[in-house]
């Protein structure tokens, strides 16, 4: 399953809620304002690290990071993808949930 999150974790609870429902083997893709969560030193990093430790794969959309001047600060373990990578994630996961 692919979880898509687009909210800044400092503003809304979407990421926390998503991570609480992500199961081992699932993928989480951070887009739009959610990309801040995947940057080094962000308070949301702890939650992401815990998810990754339980076999949840975390991806971040590079174009959204670049637009926000944070592409050089991606946290360890998080994979950057472009839109083609976003499409591949949707294709390879049989179900998709957007945490709006």
């Amino acid at each position, binding site marked *: *399953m692919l979880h898509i999150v687009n909210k800044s974790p400092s503003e809304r609870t979407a990421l926390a809620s998503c991570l*609480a429902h992500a199961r081992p083997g699932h993928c989480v893709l951070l887009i739009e304002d959610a990309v801040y969560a995947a940057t080094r030193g962000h308070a949301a990093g702890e939650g992401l690290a815990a998810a990754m430790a339980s076999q949840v794969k975390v991806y971040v959309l590079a174009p959204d990071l670049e637009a926000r001047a944070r592409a050089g600060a991606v946290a360890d373990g998080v994979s950057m993808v472009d839109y083609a990578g976003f499409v591949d994630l949707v294709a390879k996961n*049989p*179900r998709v*949930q*957007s*945490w*709006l």
Partner: protein
Amino acid sequence: MDQAGTVKKFLFVNRKAPYGSVYALEGLEVVLISAAFDQDVGLAFLDDGVYQLAKGQNTKAIESKNFSPTYRALEGYDIEKLYVERESLESRGLTEDDLLVDVQVLGKAEMAALMDEMDVMISF
């Protein structure tokens, strides 16, 4: 493309409170339409979405439509799978008795397992 007879598992995921924004109301409109397609339809209420089911909503003074009675009418559309997350209720000081319709209360892990069985998830 002939898809007659295809039955998918739908879960409408409600995470937003009513009235502050239109998502709950317009989300419910999609749910009602989905009933005409003979699909396996369920609704999940978590986070602020649980407030949609609060008993005793009175919208007179805000001049908005009170759509909460519609949740009770869902049964008439053969939509009977209403799942509410326990942790979301508890962290908001609510219990099942505060809700206007019969629901199945699930813990977070059970909700996650339920989502993992779905074909389509539409979130509002």
